């Protein structure tokens, strides 16, 4: 019987398989950041254990760090302590670290692919739920807790029960004006936040094949938002073209050997998936969330739903609570919702292509009077590339703020936070209560919608923007 892509990658990493026990999987790459690692390193110290494979481990600073005043020490003492703890741990255990100020610093899920460390057919873990981002290369990548971080540090393996397999067949082609972000938001709304629970999902079909690597990363990034263990996409020429020449990509004969292996990484025609769901990409339009979980979304052209329209009593209750928290009234057209802050960045949409799209749209326009736009590149290299292309100047001329790299307002662990009642349109991945700051209200959007919203001051798509007069 044929195997799925995920089954092939899984099978190639089984160190030990024993009836009645989860498989012991070898981990090819372990990514680390300051927030979920200190207690794991403490555990190693207490037990007198070493990091088994520092050569398969990489650390970066991203969650806590400020995006302004980068030449000064971190003002928040608790954040500073956490970052300094990572530096001490990296030094003591021999782990490579890209700290603040380093050219390769950035959000861990932007840095891995950028360095060419993320390649097809790997197992990649990180103490961060958005690790599925790396699945865009045809790898099994997933988030783990701190106890598991310690386990991987000590053994370079992880015990895992094999998840079920799901195929997401994305038919048709994304229409002009619709993006990968709209596609994944529409899928999550269709399948709900628990729909992927217990599965590794493979995104496939015509629309997926046509996406760039960065757009594929946006899709895989949000796999966790519908509960999936991991999400992945079979590698192809687009993948190889992205990888070729990156610092950690193989070269010469090693490249040829790698490609020969990567070419085998597709689900067999007779592979059996436990579940198949379909989505017609040609029907996807700009999509936004109205509630407090990523499944509570609608097309931008729709209105805030009436909680009574939900059949399930728990969903009805959840919708009703969400509307209260979000300060929204059922029936309000989404386009009528005024927005205070626009955040462009995060491991979902903080890559160079996202910034190019945003800059192109905002060029020649101005941020609305009562709105602010924060642009936070996903990594230092993304920031430098954008500056080389003059994108920073375009953003600043339009009245947007151009910041240093990091997770920033996606989760508001650094000073970039919403104030109570403040409303954002955010290209990040979570609209949970208080996610971007206590009492903050988040609408998840694509970079296109983010810019149009920032310019018009209410939720909007690029099609709503007035034409620019010819220069």
């Amino acid at each position: 019987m044929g195997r799925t892509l995920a089954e092939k990658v899984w099978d190639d990493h089984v160190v030990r398989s024993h009836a009645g026990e989860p498989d012991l999987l070898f981990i090819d790459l372990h990514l680390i950041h300051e927030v979920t690692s200190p207690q794991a390193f403490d555990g190693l110290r207490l037990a007198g254990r070493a990091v088994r494979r520092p050569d398969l481990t990489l650390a970066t600073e991203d969650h806590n760090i400020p995006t302004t005043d980068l030449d000064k020490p971190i003002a928040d003492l608790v954040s500073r302590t956490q970052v300094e703890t990572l530096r001490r741990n990296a030094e003591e255990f021999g782990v490579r670290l890209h700290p603040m100020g380093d050219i390769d610093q950035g959000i861990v899920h932007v840095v891995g692919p950028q360095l060419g460390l993320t390649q097809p057919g790997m197992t990649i873990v990180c103490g961060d739920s958005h690790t599925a981002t790396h699945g865009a290369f045809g790898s099994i990548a997933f988030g783990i807790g701190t106890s598991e971080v310690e386990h991987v540090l000590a053994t370079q393996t992880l015990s895992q029960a094999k998840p079920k397999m799901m195929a997401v067949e994305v038919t048709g082609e994304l229409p002009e004006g619709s993006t990968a972000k709209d596609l994944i938001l529409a899928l999550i709304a269709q399948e709900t936040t628990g729909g992927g629970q217990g599965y590794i999902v493979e995104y496939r079909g015509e629309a997926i094949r046509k996406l760039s690597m960065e757009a594929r990363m946006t899709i895989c990034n949000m796999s966790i938002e519908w509960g999936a263990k991991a999400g992945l996409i079979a590698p192809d020429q687009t993948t190889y073209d992205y990888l070729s020449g990156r610092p950690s990509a193989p070269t010469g004969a090693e490249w040829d050997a790698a490609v020969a292996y990567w070419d085998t990484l597709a689900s067999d025609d007779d592979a059996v998936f436990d579940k198949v769901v379909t989505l017609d990409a040609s029907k996807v339009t700009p999509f936004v969330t109205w509630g407090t979980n990523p499944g509570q979304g609608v097309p931008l052209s729709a209105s805030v739903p009436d909680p009574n329209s939900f059949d399930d009593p728990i969903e009805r209750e959840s919708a009703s609570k969400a509307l209260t928290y979000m300060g929204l009234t059922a029936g309000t057209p989404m386009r009528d919702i005024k927005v205070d802050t626009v955040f462009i960045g995060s491991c979902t949409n903080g890559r160079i292509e996202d910034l190019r799209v945003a800059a192109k749209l905002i060029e020649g326009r101005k941020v609305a009077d009562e709105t602010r736009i924060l642009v936070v590149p996903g990594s230092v290299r993304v920031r430098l590339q954008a500056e080389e292309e003059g994108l920073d100047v375009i953003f600043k001329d339009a009245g947007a703020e151009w910041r240093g790299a990091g997770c920033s307002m996606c989760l508001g662990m650094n000073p970039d936070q919403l104030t109570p009642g403040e409303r954002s349109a955010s290209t990040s991945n979570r609209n949970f209560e208080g996610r971007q700051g206590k009492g903050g209200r988040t609408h998840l959007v694509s970079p296109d919608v983010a810019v149009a919203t920032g310019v018009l001051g209410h939720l909007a798509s690029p099609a709503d923007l007035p034409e620019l007069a010819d220069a």
Partner: protein
Amino acid sequence: MDKFTAHTGVGVPLRRSNVDTDQIIPAHWLKKVTRDGFEDGLFEAWRKDPDFILNKSPYDKATVLVAGPDFGTGSSREHAVWALQNYGFKVVLSSRFADIFRGNSGKAGLLAAQVDDKVIQRLWDYLEANPGATVTVDLESRTVKAGVGDSAGPSPDGEGAIEDSFTIDDYTRWRLLEGLDDIGITLGHEDDIAAYESQRPSFKPATL
């Protein structure tokens, strides 16, 4: 890790679905570098509301959390499990747990027991009608009980007693029952790991 066999304690109904880990422990608490001291951050935003159930006696002494579906979604933060444990919870019941949360619970020694949605509904009703009533969760027999021979309840052994089974994977159950250290178990398979390492393709990337 301490062995877990069975636990009886005050149950608290949390009538909410999609309780994400940002609600369980907000991000600003994640700057701590220890595993303890998270109890005041548990459900921090909701606990500002005096009517929130954990602010009401005797629910504030609860050790068994009876939660709605999709509990523990979102961020991988194990701090969510530590916050529940630091507060005093030993068991969380839900009809559906997010994967990472369930995994983290098993590693840290918090019992995440999956029960049928109907059982959750009955427990909610029972615990609201009988504040301070206890719930017994037996890992050995994989059963959850409430109102059975319970002197706190209005009708011990009577009508409305709840007794049902819960789901937990065999391996996690065994580890919890024995209180085993995962890393210790894996290091027992050192030969297998070394054998795997010796045949990894040379084109795989390295960070050093």
